[in-house]
């Protein structure tokens, strides 16, 4: 795997982790890949939120997703915030509805270390449970700027069910990995 390396990986331990943080991300790779397999301590599905550089940046997204309807229904959405914020990037199943609930997310951050231009993220996620479709399958395209025409290199990423630092926690055993593609 010479040109693809795991930067960090781990599992949630304990019962009070609200944020999964990737800190001190080196700028030595060309692109980042973030994978997560987990669920949250909630009765129903939860939106997954992403933020970078300790909540610096103005975000926008365009997305589509399946819904919990039995068939046919699809939702879509768009948003842009001109204040510092963080966006949705997928949907996760809630553990309290079904022990078999799951959620998987893969995110790509192309050219994350270029400090001269806004950054982009592509996110694909799926979640569900055994007897009830307690989740959504989704695809997101996201962008983040510094409020102008640039954005510093991404050195920190956090993932959380809403809100960051809140009281909706990741289920113990949820696993995550951040990897870098060399350029």
């Amino acid at each position, binding site marked *: 795997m010479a040109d693809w390396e795991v930067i960090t990986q781990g599992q949630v331990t304990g019962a009070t982790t609200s944020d999964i943080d990737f800190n001190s991300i080196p700028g030595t790779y060309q692109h980042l890949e973030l994978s997560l397999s987990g669920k949250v301590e909630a009765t129903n599905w939860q939106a997954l939120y992403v933020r970078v550089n300790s909540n610096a940046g103005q975000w926008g997204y365009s997305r589509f997703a399946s819904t919990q309807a039995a068939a046919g229904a699809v939702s879509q959405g768009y948003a842009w915030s*001109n204040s510092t914020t963080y966006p949705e990037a997928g949907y996760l199943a809630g553990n309290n509805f079904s022990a078999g609930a799951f959620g998987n997310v893969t995110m790509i951050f192309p050219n994350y270390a270029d400090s001269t231009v*806004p950054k982009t993220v592509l996110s694909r996620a799926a979640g569900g449970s055994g007897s009830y479709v307690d989740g959504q399958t989704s695809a997101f395209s996201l962008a983040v700027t510094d409020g102008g025409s640039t954005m510093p290199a991404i050195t920190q990423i956090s993932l959380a069910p809403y809100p960051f630092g809140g009281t909706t926690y990741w289920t113990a055993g949820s696993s995550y990995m951040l990897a870098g593609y060399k*350029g």
Partner: protein
Amino acid sequence: MSAVTLISTATPTGSASSLEFTSIPSSYDDLLMIGNVKGDSGTDWAPNDSGNYLRLNDLSTSTSYEATQLYDQYSSGTFVGYQNQKTGTGNAVDYIKFWGITGTLNSETTPGAVWMYIPGYSVTTDTPTRNFMLHTGAVSNSTNVLSVNVINAGAVNTTSAINKISYYSGVGNLVATAKMSLYGISNS
């Protein structure tokens, strides 16, 4: 153990509206392309411009590609489109739509993003075709401009190994910050 090998990271010159990966070796199992796309047209944003497209091996007949594209489009916060675009027998196309390349209208600097996977690209004994999955998108921070998010999967009507990837901008020359990497994936 599988392995990822960088084939090349391409930096646009800023003076060409297309970018190519040529002489792709056939020694891997799959190909993966990751990067950004951005044109320099000051009169366009247009991530869905008809001039934004991709070709493999320069295939350009009317039956070269068949694909299903799932996408959404938003403009001014208003949903303006969401549908499947399916091509099929008798309705194939001469290129793969490559939405997400944006111009610089309204001083936009935000690029589009690209993830493309081409499994079994060097298989030549299997029929009928090579195939691909493509996820692209572009989000604007200005009003009255279009944002897109696209999943596109399809087939390439060839039994030859893929040795060339080319994409084209309909919104000006590709800018130098829109770097694109091509990787070879070995499954064993």
